[in-house]
């Protein structure tokens, strides 16, 4: 039995949940990256503003450079365990530094810079992480007289610790991470619910299908089905109907075959048992043996017919086409029933058979015609005429028509296996109800079709074949016999 490891509902719920999680985590990551960048920018701009305020306080006086200390600005660079510092160079000379440097200079020469501030990750002298801002500016001159000489560019470096920035970024990461995780779980649960709701028609269909079994295949009907499910239901119901019909036919065939086999078998066994216990004279034994032989022959015919049908079904019978004179095969077929026909006063007349040839399997065609002639003689009215006609308008059409007033009006089922006009299947003779079925299959093997119909009191069997040989006299064998006399022109 084929069992999937994962249900469709679980697969869809997991896929939808995973997709929602990916989208949520992706969005959170994007938000985190953008927000982190903004926070760092804000941090840089804050310290650049503070550095600019320090730079603006630098003045050149007659006795040199002087930094005007403005408390609100300088407090952040105050001496002590602070995390911010600055240093200003003019040329290679340090002209100012923050108290937080405790009188020590930053190592190295002033970095190369430009008026546009440059930011980078750096390290405070005590080893903590920070951001460095560097830019150049032109300091103010105390006596800004026109005669005052122009001042050289100064370079300022501001380094600020980023511990708080990192804490804020970490808090943001945790917030986004947790909210995304919770969101993903909630989304997965919601998706599971949505998927279950969406798959409800499929679940209903599954329940109905699970309740189906051979003989209990009712049409599946899901209320308010989604559009995608409608063709599936239509196809399923059509398949169920075909399967039920096939099953009914199969069961009918099995029951009929059982009846066909069991009844003569039972009669044979009973006859032998009775004969063993009773028949004590040679005449009685001979009589019983004759009756037993008749029953055995009947069983043999039935078994052979069933085997022939099985061979046809398995495709073991192949047509071997050859040029065939239809009149000749028809004559052979009629000859097999001529005695029985004469006994019942049945005559035969053929129309249009002369000169008709066809590319087909001679033996298979002969079997078909023998069966049809046998049926006409056995089941037709006594003292009636069997008319055999050949027409070549579209392929070759052979019809065998005879009066059979006792035949059923509806012959649509004729040709199904073990079909008999008499539902009780009483006929104790040669007919076992497989002949027409065999004919139909044989006709298919030689690329034709067999049809049986009733027209008034007439039963007409029609064999439709293709591949009539025309305009090729060399390929048309000469007829050696005629089935029955053609009417005088």
């Amino acid at each position, binding site marked *: 039995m084929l069992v999937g490891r994962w249900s469709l509902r679980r697969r869809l719920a997991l896929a939808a949940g995973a997709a929602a999680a990916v989208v949520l985590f992706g969005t959170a990551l994007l938000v985190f990256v953008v927000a982190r960048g903004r926070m760092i920018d804000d941090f840089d701009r804050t310290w650049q503003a503070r550095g600019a305020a320090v730079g603006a306080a630098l003045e050149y006086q007659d006795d040199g450079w002087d930094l005007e200390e403005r408390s609100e600005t300088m407090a952040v660079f105050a001496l002590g365990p602070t995390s911010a510092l600055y240093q200003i160079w003019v040329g290679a000379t340090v002209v100012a530094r923050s108290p937080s440097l405790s009188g020590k200079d930053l190592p190295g020469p002033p970095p190369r810079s430009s008026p546009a501030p440059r930011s980078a990750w750096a390290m405070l002298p005590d080893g903590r992480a920070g951001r460095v801002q560097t830019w150049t500016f032109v300091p103010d001159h105390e006596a800004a007289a026109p005669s005052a000489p122009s001042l050289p560019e100064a370079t300022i470096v501001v380094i600020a610790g980023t511990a708080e920035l990192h804490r804020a970024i970490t808090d943001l990461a945790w917030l986004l991470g947790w909210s995304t995780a919770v969101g993903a779980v909630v989304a997965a649960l919601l998706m599971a619910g949505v998927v279950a709701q969406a798959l409800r028609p499929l679940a209903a269909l599954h329940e109905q299908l699970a309740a189906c079994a051979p003989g209990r295949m009712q049409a599946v009907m899901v209320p308010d089905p989604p559009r995608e499910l409608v063709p599936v239901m239509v196809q399923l119901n059509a398949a169920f109907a075909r399967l039920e019909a096939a099953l009914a036919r199969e069961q009918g065939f099995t029951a009929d075959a059982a009846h066909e086999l069991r009844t*003569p078998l039972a009669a044979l066994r*009973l*006859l032998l048992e009775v004969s063993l216990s009773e028949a004590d004279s040679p005449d009685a034994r001979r009589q019983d043996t004759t009756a037993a032989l008749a029953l055995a022959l009947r069983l043999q015919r039935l078994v052979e017919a069933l085997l022939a049908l099985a061979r046809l079904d398995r495709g073991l019978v192949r047509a071997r086409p050859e040029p065939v004179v239809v009149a000749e095969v028809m004559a052979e077929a009629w000859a097999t029933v001529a005695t029985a026909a004469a006994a019942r006063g049945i005559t035969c007349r053929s129309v249009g058979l002369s000169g008709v040839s066809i590319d087909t399997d001679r033996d298979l065609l002969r079997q078909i015609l023998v069966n049809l002639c046998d049926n006409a003689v056995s089941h037709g009215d006594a003292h009636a005429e069997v008319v055999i006609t050949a027409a070549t308008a579209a392929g070759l059409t052979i019809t065998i028509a005879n009066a059979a007033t006792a035949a059923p009006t509806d012959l649509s089922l004729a040709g199904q296996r073990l079909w008999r006009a008499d539902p009780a299947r009483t006929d104790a003779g040669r007919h076992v109800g497989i002949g027409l079925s065999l004919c139909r299959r044989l006709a298919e093997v030689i690329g034709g079709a067999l049809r049986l119909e009733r027209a008034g009191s007439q039963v007409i069997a029609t064999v439709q074949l293709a591949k009539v040989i025309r305009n090729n006299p060399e390929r048309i064998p000469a007829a050696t016999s005629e089935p029955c006399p053609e009417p005088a022109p």
Partner: protein
Amino acid sequence: MRILVVEDFAPMRDTLQRALQGVGFAVDGAGDGDEALYHLKDAVHDVVVLDLMLPGVTGLEVLRRLRAAAHPAHVLVLTARDAIDDRVQALDLGADDYLVKPFALAELLARVRALVRRAYDRKDPLLRVADLVVDTAGRTAGRDGQRLELTAREFALLHYLALRAGEVVSRSDLLERLYPLDESAISNVLEVHVSNLRRKLEATGGARLLHTRRGEGYVLAERDGAA
């Protein structure tokens, strides 16, 4: 005991009739449902062996009509149909037994005998009248421990009288139940068989068990109540 065999397959019907006649039953045959119903209208058959697939009126329809008419015959369905549904349907319609073809003759006869016993409200296959014992299964009879050599027809007569021991059984009843139509037309066939049976019953020296009631019929009993 009279039995009707309803079977459309002639070789089967003929052999069944022959087998049942061979063990002393009077047997009629019918090839279809209509003929079966015609035979059954006189209600003289104790058992009907009935095929289901019959031309015209089906076996099930025959069964339905029998039961609707409260016909007393016991019905043994004998058919090739072996599905549970078929068995249930036939039994629910009033069949007394169901046997699927092919079958063993011994089993068929045993089932028919069982239905005959049931028809006369007997359970024991040994029927006893005074010192007479009739073994319906072994088809033997004995008196006072001595076996009686009886023909099939004599045994059938004794069997029927033993089933109705103590009752007066009319001559016409015996002819209807025990003799084929062609034989029952012979006026003294019954008297000949009764005479022979009585002689064999009394050959052991026992008291008379088979009594004649003039103008009424015969009774198998230890004492003739009318005497």
